[in-house]
């Protein structure tokens, strides 16, 4: 940091020079501070539920983003309209890069439990594709597979995966289960979250 000094010609304006020096120092320090804080703080969004999401039948894909989500933390610079229900399109705000995306949830049967029935919990990454029947194609799927133990605790999952994403991508959080005797619910207190680890072409120190 280089600060200007008073010269012989303006010694009468020392006060003004000190004022200028103080402002100059503040500007230089602030710029450095913001750059370093930006490097430390990964853009991160965390949302959770405060009520159970119920009536998820067996043998179909249940979209967990259809639950009501609330923002727990969001340090991204977003415009209006990016509420927690638009979480799945966070890459539109944060841009292309390497992301860490996670899900934490507890699933319990609303009625009878089928011992050892399967629970597939997916984090899917979709990208627009005009040639696809649905207008988008799946780019990457991260699956956590659980089997119900019928011990009264349901199934709890807490996992994450890394995705290389573009701004147009969206993420889906899904449950597919085989508990045919009753629907499942996702208990209150579930989390989905995303953190941008890096720009595509730059490596961050983690």
């Amino acid at each position, binding site marked *: 940091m280089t600060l200007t000094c008073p010269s012989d010609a303006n010694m009468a*304006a*020392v*006060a*003004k020079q*000190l*004022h200028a*020096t*103080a*402002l100059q*120092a*503040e500007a230089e*320090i*602030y710029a*450095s*501070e913001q750059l*370093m*804080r930006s*490097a*430390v*703080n*990964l853009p*991160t969004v*965390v949302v959770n539920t405060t009520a159970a999401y119920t009536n998820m039948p067996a043998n179909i894909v249940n979209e967990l983003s259809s639950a009501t989500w609330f923002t*727990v*933390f969001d*340090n991204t610079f977003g415009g209006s309209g990016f509420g927690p229900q638009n979480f799945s399109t966070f890459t539109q705000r944060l841009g292309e890069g390497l992301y*860490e995306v*996670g899900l*934490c949830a*507890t699933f319990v049967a609303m009625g009878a439990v089928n011992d*050892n029935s399967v629970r597939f919990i997916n984090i899917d990454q979709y990208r627009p594709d005009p040639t696809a029947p649905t207008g988008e194609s799946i780019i990457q799927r991260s699956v956590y597979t*659980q*089997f*119900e*133990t019928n*011990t009264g*605790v*349901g*199934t*709890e*999952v*807490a*996992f*994450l995966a890394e995705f290389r994403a573009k701004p147009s991508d969206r993420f889906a959080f899904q449950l597919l289960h085989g508990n045919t005797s009753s629907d499942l619910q996702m208990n209150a*207190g579930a*989390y989905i*979250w995303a*953190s941008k680890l890096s720009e595509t072409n730059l490596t961050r*120190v*983690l």
Partner: protein
Amino acid sequence: MPGQTPIYGLLYPCSDEPITPAAFQILANQIDAKLLELQGDYTLMLNRYNYDIESVGPQNIAAGADTVLTGAGLTYTIPMSGVYVVRARSGGIPSGAFSMMRVRVRQNGVVRFGQTSNTEGNTLVTPVAIGPIVAVAGDVITAQFLYAGAGTVNVFSGIDVKMLVRTA
């Protein structure tokens, strides 16, 4: 009455005030102090808070008892307010049959998330739970373990904590 800059409040004399050496000293000391804080930001930028511990010895837990893990280092106190990713893992082979294992992460004693494993047929599948925690400095992170079955188990456990965002 001296003026001050808008962000950090650095003091400077106003034009109608007498200028003394103290004015230079005050401003110099304030700038010095801010640069020292900046050093802290620089250090944190290169050395993000990361913590990883494996328990040195086992902890004996009875079937059906949801038990807080108390091994050395398995309690982590958040050093700086922020958002952290916490991972906990715990497991062992019980003396009796075992059909389910579960590990959960707690913040100040409140469960935040967990992971179950189906271990029917007495197949060891160590549960590992990983998720986000929004914390303030001083918050205490711990884990707890439960298994369904018979007998007792000596579990070996570990937690790791990584800072994503600083909020302080």
